[in-house]
């Protein structure tokens, strides 16, 4: 035991000298490889896992709020919506909510021009949403998603905001974009200021398009928004029968606890109360797991590549020092000492590379992506790199490096002493 410790001490001593007085370029190269490998292992996986989580956050921020109230499975609308709205506003943790009417309708552009019967009309089916513009904006910042024209105003009547995916210039017009034999996938040539015909429950009316909305979630990009009072009037719906209530909470309030409070208070009799996460269903968990798996796969390949690289580098270093290894053995330095010096060397390279990686990750990359999320079409890409996960991946990388450093050292050290000294 004492001999082993002594061997390790001498091995560490040799490693320090190799590091301090060996080739700085070789050291720089290996440290750079370890640094990039670490970032590959942590950041690529973090971005991949961040995709579905970013999509989920977009869904929450742009559509559902932290808690979403929807009709019961066997109901068309939420009963006693007014009471529910008053109740939720009185609960601890509440910050704001928006209640929406939902309906379906058909939008038709270029409706005044006569058209051959053999041609498809320029029309598209869409979900219609009646909103209180002020309340909606407080919850989902819908006004910030207006990319053309203007947002809705309280007194607007025959005006609509159109989701970008309903317009040909954003969505294209292909079967993939939702076209059917009866309706095209999107409207062509519609801009703010144009008038479209909107048919709701067989009642057709003309509406001015005042703006175009584009968000990360399909619920916004494929919907048509109008002021709630107007839609309610067209539908002939009671003010006490709305279709969605999205709630945002104060900072620090827990969505699960808040939703449970609503259910416990009996709201579950009138409506389905879900957190944003629950409302997205099992799909989100599945896609997160899938991306996690992909990230781990990419990370695993990165680790294997790093292991092979370290193996080759240490093998070359040890091969170049073959004669010195022979001399060390010749003067009585045991194998453990020599092997451990190269293992310590690989660990030192890995530690420095990983240390730099951690600094860059948490000092530069993570804050930068938090401030400037990666703009993916369906989500704001965030970086998921929790400390414990990063620590675990760092340890795996060091362990891999340790083995990758040990094997070539052992291969060289095993060579007969006199052959190593004489270089044969």
């Amino acid at each position, binding site marked *: 035991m*004492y001999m082993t410790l*002594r061997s390790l*001490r001498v091995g560490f001593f040799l490693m320090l000298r190799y590091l301090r007085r060996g080739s700085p370029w070789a050291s720089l190269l290996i440290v750079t490889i370890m640094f990039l490998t670490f970032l590959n292992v942590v950041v690529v996986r973090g971005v991949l896992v961040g995709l579905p989580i970013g999509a989920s956050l977009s869904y929450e921020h742009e559509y559902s709020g932290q808690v979403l109230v929807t009709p019961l499975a066997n109901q068309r609308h939420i009963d006693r919506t007014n009471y529910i709205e008053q109740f939720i506003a009185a609960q601890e943790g509440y910050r704001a909510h928006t209640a929406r009417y939902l309906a379906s309708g058909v939008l038709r552009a270029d409706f005044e021009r006569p058209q051959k019967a053999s041609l498809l009309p320029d029309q598209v089916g869409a979900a219609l949403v009646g909103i209180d513009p002020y309340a909606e904006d407080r919850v989902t910042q819908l006004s910030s998603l207006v990319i053309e024209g203007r947002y809705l105003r309280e007194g607007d009547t025959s005006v609509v905001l159109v989701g970008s995916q309903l317009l040909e210039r954003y969505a294209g017009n292909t079967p993939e974009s939702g076209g059917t034999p009866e309706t095209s996938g999107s409207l062509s040539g519609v801009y703010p200021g144009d008038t479209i015909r909107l048919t709701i429950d067989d009642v057709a009316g003309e509406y001015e398009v005042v703006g175009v909305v584009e968000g990360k979630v399909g619920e916004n990009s494929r919907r048509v928004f109008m002021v709630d009072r107007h839609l309610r009037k067209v539908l002939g719906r009671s003010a006490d029968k709305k279709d969605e209530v999205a709630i945002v909470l104060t900072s620090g309030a827990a969505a699960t606890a808040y939703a449970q409070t609503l259910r416990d208070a009996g709201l579950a009799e009138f409506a389905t109360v879900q957190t944003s996460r629950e409302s997205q269903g099992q799909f989100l968990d599945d896609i997160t797991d899938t991306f996690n798996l992909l990230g781990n796969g990419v990370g695993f390949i990165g680790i294997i590549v790093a292991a092979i690289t370290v193996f080759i580098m240490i093998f070359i270093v040890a091969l170049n020092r073959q004669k*010195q290894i022979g001399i060390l053995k*010749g*003067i009585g*330095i045991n194998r453990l000492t020599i092997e451990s010096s190269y293992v310590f060397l690989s660990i030192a390279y890995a530690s420095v590379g990983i240390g730099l990686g951690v600094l860059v990750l948490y000092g530069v990359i993570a804050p930068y992506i938090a401030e400037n999320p990666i703009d993916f079409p369906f989500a704001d890409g965030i970086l998921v790199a929790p400390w414990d996960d990063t620590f675990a991946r760092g340890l795996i990388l060091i362990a891999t490096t340790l083995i990758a450093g040990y094997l070539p050292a052992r291969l060289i050290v095993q060579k007969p002493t006199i052959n190593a000294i004489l270089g044969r």
Partner: protein
Amino acid sequence: MQAPVIETRDVKKHFTIGEVVTRAVDGISIQIHEGEFVAIDGMSGSGKSTLLHLLSLLDRPSEGEVRVLGEDTSRFPRQRRVSMRLTTFGYVFQDYALIPELTALENVLLPQFMQTGCYASCSKRGEELLARVGLGDRLHNLPNQLSGGEQQRVAIARALVNKPRILFADEPTANLDSDTSENIMGIIKELHGQGITVMMVTHEPEYAARAERIITLADGRVVEG
């Protein structure tokens, strides 16, 4: 009579390359006694370096026995051979064989560090040895900052740091000019004078003549001595 510190019994070392067998050492039986200064000489390719490698446990014989301090080393496990090289033997190689990343002092102290686990607080012996070979002012120089002769003197100091009973020197003056060679031979002679058994390979008769006994090899066999 005192038992030999090293003894070989019909020791052979054969190298096979393809179908060609080279008998580098071909049945040598010698005895080296404590305190002797033995020179091994012979023509190039006569097997003198190979014999030194076998005697110093750097290599294993193909046949025969190498006995050190009365023990048959063929039965030694690897670790025992390494340990004997560390504690009992000292080596001076032909081409100095210093570790380039270590200073002169660190090179000298390395075997002592390995044997005792003591480094910084035991550096005095290393400093004394380097002073003794005339390098007291070059302790912290790296090998590439030293001349060939200085490097060889560092190698001698390193060989002595663990107070070996036997010093092996493989053509210690081969790469040195005549003045430096004289200096190195003087140091080796002085060490012998202090009771260390010295086995030195040389192909220079002038230096072989400084030894008490000369073993002359030809074609892997002892022809004289």
